[in-house]
């Protein structure tokens, strides 16, 4: 079996039956990375101790110790999630050499489940972007076509999984940053319900929107990683105490009998690429073939999502990024004559263009005289967007939408026009604004071989329903 294509479940079996060792597995991925990541640039850092950790896992196994779900299996982590002993740069010059003194709860939980943290993946600086072109250390390329972007901001994680550089990775999703790159790279990406997964150790972008989630080769793998990282954490007071079912053990029905799917009318009215539209109708028919119903629903405030998102996300980001001041950690400019200049030059030299743009915009919408017209207004429209979903979920169990309006675009195609780039998240931001769980899963390719992803959005805390539906469709499509 090609380890670069195997799922987590397959790898577990291979390891437990001793058909492969963890050292062999790690050697495979490290070699794939050293051969091909020069072109793709999915990783910003590869763990030098990965092989050593694999050896320890093999020793445990040969002593007959029972394996945990991820024992000896490598997982990559987006570089805005804190790890010990490996840098956490957020793809920013301001954190270029930063090594966190503590680790994120999700990373601790992965390691407790036996995972080896293989490396840190590339992203748009501070997760500000939809193409991974905003990385201060150079863009990531799409493994399906290196002229095209992998999506973003978790582009490194999605590309690494798609290219066979790791079987699974963590991403973070503030407005689509897990789902859009998953769709562009032909892999699965799950954004959990807000509060489901601890954000402790995730470098904050927009605190009321951010969620960490898995990027994997299959839906069941996403369920496995999700069940490991989800659950209350005393270090994140916004993490909820809702019990977490063991998603890794549940039965996956092959059909969808009794489920009602809604197709939001507004998601089809705008400019959606032909192959994406075709995929949506094809999968709708498939859903009906599996015993579920598909009906049109309406989410009238859909088109306001991007405007609301860019006000709220930049407002929160401008506050969150105030901590990067060159005092306690990170880059410090040498050009200062006093404290004020130290701040000004450190941030002026340390932040990239998009980061500056968003901080300035966020500062503007929060400034006196504009706060009500922009920030408060956006929070009110956010309520309307949320109410649209609540109303739709009175009629249907789940919503089916395209993940993105378009196929993966070319490097440079949108990087000169921020607004155009922002609009690439039009189908994903609203789930963040409403705090809802959503998954993107691959449904095929366009004639030119580019992946197409569809999105299932569910009511809060209904990840189980989303995963089951996506698993049934994944199976029917395979």
């Amino acid at each position: 079996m090609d380890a670069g294509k195997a799922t987590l479940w397959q790898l577990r079996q291979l390891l437990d039956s001793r058909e492969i060792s963890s050292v062999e597995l790690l050697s495979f991925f490290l070699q794939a990375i050293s051969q091909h990541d020069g072109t793709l640039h999915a990783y910003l850092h590869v763990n030098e101790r990965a092989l050593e950790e694999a050896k320890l896992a093999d020793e445990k196994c040969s002593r007959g110790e029972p394996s945990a779900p991820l024992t000896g299996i490598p997982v990559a982590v987006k570089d805005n999630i804190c790890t010990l002993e490996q840098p956490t740069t957020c793809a920013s010059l301001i954190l270029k050499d930063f090594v966190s003194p503590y680790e994120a709860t999700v990373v601790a939980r992965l390691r407790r489940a036996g995972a080896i943290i293989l490396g840190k993946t590339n992203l748009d600086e501070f997760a500000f972007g939809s193409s991974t072109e905003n990385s201060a250390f150079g863009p990531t390329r799409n493994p399906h076509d290196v002229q095209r972007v992998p999506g973003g901001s978790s582009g490194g994680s999605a590309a690494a999984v798609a290219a066979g550089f790791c079987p699974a990775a963590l991403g973070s999703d503030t407005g689509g940053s897990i789902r859009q790159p998953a769709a562009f790279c032909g892999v699965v990406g799950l954004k959990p319900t807000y509060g489901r997964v601890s954000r402790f150790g995730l470098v904050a972008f927009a605190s009321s929107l951010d969620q960490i989630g898995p990027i994997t080769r299959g839906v069941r793998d996403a369920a496995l990683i999700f069940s490991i990282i989800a659950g209350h954490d005393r270090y994140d007071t916004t993490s909820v105490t809702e019990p977490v079912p063991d998603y890794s053990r549940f039965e996956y029905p092959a059909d969808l009998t009794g489920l009602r799917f809604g197709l939001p009318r507004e998601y089809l009215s705008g400019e959606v690429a032909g192959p994406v539209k075709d995929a949506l109708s094809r999968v709708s028919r498939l859903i009906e073939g599996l015993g579920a119903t598909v009906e049109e629903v309406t989410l009238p405030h859909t088109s306001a999502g991007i405007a609301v998102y860019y006000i709220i996300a930049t407002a929160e980001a401008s506050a969150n990024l105030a901590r990067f001041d060159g005092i306690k950690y990170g880059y410090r400019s040498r050009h200062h004559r006093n404290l004020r200049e130290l701040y000004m030059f450190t941030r002026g030299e340390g932040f990239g263009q998009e980061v500056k743009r968003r901080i300035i915009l966020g500062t503007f919408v929060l400034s006196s005289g504009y706060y009500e017209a922009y920030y408060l207004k956006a929070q009110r429209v956010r309520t309307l967007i949320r109410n649209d979903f609540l109303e739709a979920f009175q009629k249907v169990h789940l919503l089916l939408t395209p993940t993105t309006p378009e196929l993966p675009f070319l490097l440079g195609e949108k990087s000169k026009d921020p607004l155009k780039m922002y609009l690439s998240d039009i189908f994903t931001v609203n789930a963040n604004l409403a705090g809802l769980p959503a998954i993107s899963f691959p449904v095929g390719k366009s004639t030119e071989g580019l992946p197409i992803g569809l999105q299932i959005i569910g009511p809060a805390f209904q990840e189980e329903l989303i995963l089951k539906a996506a698993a049934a469709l994944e199976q029917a499509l395979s």
Partner: protein
Amino acid sequence: MKQQVKYLAELARIALTEQELAGLEQDLEKILDYVSQLEKIETTGVEPTYHVVPMTNVWRQDKVEASLSTEKALANAPERHGNFFKVPRVI
């Protein structure tokens, strides 16, 4: 608008070059023009959603617990002086 971007950059403590100022001024105008579509949406009587999880004031015991050692806390300091972060003279 240019004066305003300058002022915002000052508030946000970001030094900008003249070229950056001009670029941001244009970007900001375009983005604000785009988000002005929200004005048309009727929101009288609609409560704002600051946060989707309805929780307030999560308390914990005010108890001393293990924390980072001084060395670990200072490990990333751009400049240090003994057990302190070193900064330019403030007063």
